[in-house]
């Protein structure tokens, strides 16, 4: 059976709903705007929030890049790319520079983003206070009252237990000195890229029905204490096994035969680009 889907999958009413929420999200940086999240042909929690944002944005002239944990070619990225391409006919690319829209799961690309680009991040848990307060009713009030002791206490407890802030990813940030926001599970390494970013950053959580945003040139500060400053993952003295890059976010891998540990760029298109332009 052949079904002729609408352009960008959605009916216009759904797009309108997402667009209205997005405009409000941009006007209130870091505030999670509730929206009527739609059923998608992929499972909730697999990027439906990001996908809904991407579909509401996409037009015929767009060039789309989708990455999943740094990779352009993992299952999640490929499926999302295929769905958008099939329903819109837009061009896909792996090249960060050529993309007008970049949907990403858990990474911000190594190449710095440009003015007219839009970065869409997929968010599993948009609420930075969820670990300390399970009730949505209450967390909404905590945000209203600018009451973020919970987030600070979480970091404090980590320092007490482990001697440092042990947030592997999703280290909470404060946006425009007002809202504490979950930056989606990007590594701490990527948090500083949000601060005064040239590109607009939109974050979508489909299952949790929330859209929020960081406009360009907006202050984004990772939560930290005076005596325990915010630190990004360090890859000092490490270089990529393939392209010899340093100072980028790397995957730690183990050679099964020799049991040796080696490192490789996490952003595959960045690595490939360096390899291709080596000569």
């Amino acid at each position: 059976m052949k079904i002729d889907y609408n352009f960008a999958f959605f009916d216009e009413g759904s797009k309108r709903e997402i667009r209205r929420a997005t405009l409000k999200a941009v006007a209130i940086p870091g505030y999670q705007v509730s929206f009527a999240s739609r059923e998608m042909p992929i499972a909730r929690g697999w990027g439906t929030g990001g996908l809904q944002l991407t579909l509401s944005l996409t037009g015929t002239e767009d060039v789309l890049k989708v990455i999943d944990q740094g990779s352009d070619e993992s299952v999640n990225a490929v499926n999302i790319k295929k769905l958008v391409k099939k329903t819109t006919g837009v061009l896909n690319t792996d090249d960060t520079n050529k993309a007008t829209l970049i949907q990403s799961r858990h990474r911000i690309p190594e190449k710095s983003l440009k003015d007219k680009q839009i970065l869409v991040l997929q968010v599993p848990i948009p609420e930075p206070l969820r670990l300390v307060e399970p009730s949505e009713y209450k967390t909404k009030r905590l945000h209203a009252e600018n009451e973020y002791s919970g987030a600070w206490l979480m970091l404090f407890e980590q320092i007490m237990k482990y001697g440092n802030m042990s947030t592997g990813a999703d280290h909470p940030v404060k946006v425009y000195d007002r809202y504490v926001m979950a930056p989606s599970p990007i590594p701490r390494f990527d948090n500083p890229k949000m601060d005064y970013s040239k590109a607009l950053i939109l974050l979508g959580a489909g299952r949790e029905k929330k859209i929020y945003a960081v406009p360009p040139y907006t202050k984004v500060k990772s939560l930290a204490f005076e005596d325990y400053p915010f630190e990004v993952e360090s890859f000092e003295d490490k270089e990529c096994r393939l392209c010899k890059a340093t100072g980028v976010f790397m995957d730690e891998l183990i050679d099964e035969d020799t049991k040796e540990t080696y490192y490789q760029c996490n952003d595959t298109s960045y690595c490939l680009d360096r390899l291709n332009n080596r000569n």
Partner: protein
Amino acid sequence: MKLDMVHDIQRTYRKVLNSMSRPGEIENIKNESQKVDIDTEFFNSTLVLMFMLLDAEVSFKIISNKEDEMTKFINQLTYAKSKELHEADFIFLLNDAKKEDIESTFKKAKVGDLINPNKSATIIVESEKITNEKDLTLKGPGIKEVNYVEVKLKGNWIEERNEKNIEYPLGIDVIFTDINSNIMCLPRTTQIFK
């Protein structure tokens, strides 16, 4: 040619989104608005914005000399409900609005509450002209250093807007348009200096 409700609206949205994320940047939707083939007494660009924003889920208010007539027309066109000024989600200040109406619109529009600051009004204003002349200085999120704009509009709307947005995150967001289909947005976070 007829306005394409999918692609023209999408292009308009991207331009409005860009202006909303970069306050003071002027976008133009003439390519889209000139396709409008419905006769109205307001700007074509405003009608395109109505198609982009309004449906049965939201409410609107028209500020114009011919309010009753226009309200009926827009309700039939978009199915959006008309509500009082202090309750409306989208307020359209049309070009024939009087000075007092402009000021009272900024004064009475809803600002949301601390739990739901997004439940605030968006005001769409038809002004005579929007340019990047160095009249008003803008600062805030989305602006690298400063942006300059000139908005030709009657009344003390700047003071009223400042007063309204004093308790961030509460506030109103404004989309300006003009006869040449220019679009410029001022979200609540933008500070205006004269």
